[in-house]
């Protein structure tokens, strides 16, 4: 009976090393096929006529001209006459045609009339939001009145961050193929196994008739769980067109309008503290929107469990494309508001925020020691004590430099995961799992684990994923994939190895439990001369391959949840233009056992790059008068480029907490960049830019407030 644990550090061949991703050659050569790249015989192209209004009722639809057009093969009304649509970009009519130009012409030939209804698309003015705002009851912790009465100083400020959009480079969509009540779905999804039932239900066919396939996905970040309405529509169009496959992917403007909104969050915060840095009380009035579903309440105060709190949150439902999960849902919002307010509190008593955070580190609870370690490492890497200065860079000239910091936490853990590991009598090995590789290195991690466990080279193991016909594995969200898939594949590998040991033992004149798999051989522990090659050992299976089902959850502690991280930013601000430049960001990230150090570090680098664009540019900009999203393109929806990131330094605390098992890393490092950068800008210019993104316009406005304040 196998002992379900990870190998000790000295027994790891691949685990924890820097391994290049195994699908790298496919990706760099253009051979990797994404769902968006699927071309099927006779395939039609689907397009959608969308509501130009943020809130309207469909009055009439005339598709007659489009129906007569040669090349138009199917039409489907998504929002019929009388249907209310709640955001600009909502689907109204879909068309499938033989090629894209024809489908575009057909869209223009479809006439839809609307009764325009009142809307709200901005989210910054909650006081005048009327019935769109739904205030919740006040929430008290401890005795806030006493906490504030004990305070020697109180700090008050306004903070916030806007709705942003995922802007996945591969848009949301699919190629749907209807064949006699069966559906083959080439879907762009973070949940291959989990999408099956969601496709079957609206189409009213058994889930057993649905197959989801996806080799590669071009970004998801939380926005691609399950099929969307337009994917179901594509399947309906395919059915109407006699089973011709329909390719339906969002155009870029639609992708930004309807396929991803991270909720905003704004707050008025009051913090009570003593002059020695002791925090005595927190008060916040916050609001947030994520469209119709409002967007939830961010965790406030974040990480620091301040003893006395008074909090009130208002949910704002407005007319924008609705919220979707984003790396670490709700945490970046809670973190940005809390960490910037805490920095301002430290400023109010003239304290270095590093010292202020350390002074209050016990308020972070069980991970206080980890945060303290991380802050020390980060401070060394960015030379905090040498480079930090009191608020407002006093050096001459228009370029001001500053440092800022932030800390964060995330749970992670391992999702449910099944896999089948097959060993053939010729020694070949294949692992099949209905999971997906978002670019996080899932395939590579599976390959590392199976090869390491079986004592084989990486290329002796075949990893096959991305098909709902394989054993079901969870959706990739919340940093739960690596925990789930590493645990199930490790268990399968250990169980399969037990069977190989049992078959090989008689030939080696040993008991199965005396055997080990090392360097492509099955050998007796402590007596390497008594060994069989892997192929010889597998030949003992005679004609029958073995297939072992690996599962998570299961026996043994292979995964854990809960990490902390610290980030520090070094920025320069041009006070004449308001432009913020990143000099350096340091990320110190706690983790469990790392499977692949190379791709793990990439996760953190990527989170920082993404965080920089959120801090400096990203914002869905709406026009209240027309209800339209003004920057539904990649020209004016700002993303970081290669010249914008400064120097990124990643310190993954590998080796320190290996005994905890595997913990995912996708979400946590994406939380802190915004507040760390905002705090660095504050340190540079000596005045808070209250909300993200820190655009030149807002920096200049903040400087103007500072100037007026002095005058």
């Amino acid at each position, binding site marked *: 009976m196998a002992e379900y644990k990870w190998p000790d550090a000295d027994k790891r061949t691949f685990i924890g090393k820097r391994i290049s*991703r195994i699908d790298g050659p496919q990706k760099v050569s253009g*051979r990797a096929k994404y769902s968006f790249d699927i071309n099927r015989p006779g395939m039609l192209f689907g397009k959608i006529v969308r509501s130009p209004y943020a809130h309207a009722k469909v009055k009439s639809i005339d598709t007659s001209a489009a129906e007569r057009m040669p090349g138009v093969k199917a039409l489907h009304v998504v929002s019929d006459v009388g249907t209310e649509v709640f955001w600009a970009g909502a689907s109204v009519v879909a068309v499938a045609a033989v090629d894209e130009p024809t489908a575009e012409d057909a869209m223009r030939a479809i006439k839809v009339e609307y009764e325009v209804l009142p809307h709200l698309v901005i989210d910054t003015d909650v006081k005048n939001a009327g019935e769109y705002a739904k205030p919740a009851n006040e929430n008290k912790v401890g005795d806030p009145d006493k906490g504030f009465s004990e305070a020697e100083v109180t700090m008050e400020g306004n903070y916030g961050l806007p709705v942003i959009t995922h802007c996945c480079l591969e848009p949301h969509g699919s190629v749907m193929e209807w064949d006699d009540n069966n559906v083959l779905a080439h879907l762009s999804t973070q949940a291959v196994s989990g999408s099956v039932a969601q496709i079957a239900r609206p189409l009213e066919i058994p889930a057993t008739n649905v197959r989801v396939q996806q080799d590669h996905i071009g970004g998801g970040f939380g926005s691609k769980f399950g099929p969307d309405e337009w994917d179901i529509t594509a399947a309906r169009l395919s059915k109407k067109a006699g089973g011709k496959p329909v390719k339906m992917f969002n155009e*870029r403007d639609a992708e930004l309008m309807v396929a991803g909104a991270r909720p905003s969050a704004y707050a008025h915060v009051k913090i009570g503290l003593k002059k020695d840095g002791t925090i005595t009380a927190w008060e916040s009035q916050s609001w947030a929107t994520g469209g119709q579903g409002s967007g939830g309440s961010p965790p406030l105060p974040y990480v620091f469990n301040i003893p006395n709190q008074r909090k009130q949150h208002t949910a704002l439902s407005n007319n924008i494309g609705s919220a979707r999960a984003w790396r670490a849902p709700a945490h970046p919002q809670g973190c940005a508001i809390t960490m910037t307010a805490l920095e301002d509190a430290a400023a109010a008593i003239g304290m270095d925020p590093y010292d202020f955070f350390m002074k209050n580190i016990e308020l972070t609870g069980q991970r206080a020691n980890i945060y303290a370690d991380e802050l020390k490492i980060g401070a060394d890497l960015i030379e905090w004590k040498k480079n930090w200065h009191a608020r407002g860079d006093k050096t001459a000239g228009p370029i001001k430099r500053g440092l800022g910091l932030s800390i964060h936490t995330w749970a992670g853990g391992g999702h449910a995961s099944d896999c089948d590991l097959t060993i053939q009598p010729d020694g070949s090995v294949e692992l099949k799992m209905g999971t997906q590789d978002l670019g996080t290195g899932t395939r590579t991690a599976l390959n590392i684990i199976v090869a390491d466990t079986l004592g084989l080279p990486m290329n002796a193991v075949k990893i096959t994923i991305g098909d709902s016909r394989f054993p079901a594995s969870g959706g990739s969200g919340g940093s739960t994939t690596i925990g789930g898939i590493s645990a199930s594949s490790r268990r399968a590998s250990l169980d399969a190895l037990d069977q190989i040991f049992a078959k090989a033992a008689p030939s080696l004149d040993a008991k199965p439990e005396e055997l080990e798999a090392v360097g492509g051989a099955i050998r007796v522990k402590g007596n390497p001369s008594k060994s069989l090659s892997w192929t010889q050992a597998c030949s003992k299976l005679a004609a029958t391959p073995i297939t072992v089902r690996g599962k998570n959850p299961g026996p043994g502690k292979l995964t854990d949840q809960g990490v902390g991280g610290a980030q520090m930013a070094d920025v320069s601000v041009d006070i004449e233009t308001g432009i913020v430049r990143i000099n350096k960001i340091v990320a110190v990230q706690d983790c469990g056992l790392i499977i692949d150090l190379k791709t793990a570090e990439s996760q953190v680098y990527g989170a*920082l790059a993404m965080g920089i664009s959120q801090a400096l540019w990203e914002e869905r900009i709406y026009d209240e008068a027309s209800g339209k999203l003004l920057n539904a393109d990649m020209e004016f929806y700002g993303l970081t480029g290669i010249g914008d990131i400064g120097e990124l330094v990643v310190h993954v605390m590998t080796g320190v907490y290996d005994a905890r098992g595997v913990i995912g890393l996708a979400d946590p490092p994406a939380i802190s960049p915004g507040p760390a950068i905002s705090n660095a800008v504050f340190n540079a210019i000596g005045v808070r830019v209250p909300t993200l993104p820190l655009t030149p316009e807002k920096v200049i406005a903040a400087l103007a407030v500072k100037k007026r304040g002095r005058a």
Partner: protein
Amino acid sequence: MQDDDNVKDKGSGLSRRTFLKASGISLSVPLVMGYRVIKVSGAEVKLYGPGKVPLTLSINGKSYNAQVEPRVTLLEALRNELDITGAKRVCDRGTCGACTMIVDGKAVYSCSTLAIEAQGKSITTVEGLMQGDNLHPVQQAFIDNDAQQCGFCTPGFVVACKAFLDKNPNPTAEQIKKGLGGNTCRCGTYMGVRAAVAQAAQKGGRRNG
């Protein structure tokens, strides 16, 4: 709008027709090989369409034929008609670089290039960078430095890096940041890309032509 739609029923090209009507340019030469030649301000200009026209493209050293409407971009012709899908359509407006191809030695956004304009030119896509089973040094450097995550921007980025190194065989860090500013990666692999370009430069990123 109604007029437009009626013309488009037949296939395409109405905006050009409307334009011609408005600007008073005369059609003078009969249809030859899918296009007509017209005189605009004394110069002869090829006029394609309406409807599909035959097209010949030279891609990665091979000749391909297709029938596309004149409004079809080079990117769409390759992806939708020829099943050459390495280059990706992302912004569709010449911003993000995911569609980058090399046309006559120059990196171009193929989403903003008409297919008909690319005829007679030498087109290189990411699929054309390998020599047999051997990766181009830029491709190998992308793998070594993990300059990709989801990989959707990677084909365009790899092609852009190759074109960049062809012109700047020994780039400084500052040149890399400026020269590759036309490609966007949402996963944030820029540290890897910087390292990859530096590695490929040292190993001779120009090697395979």
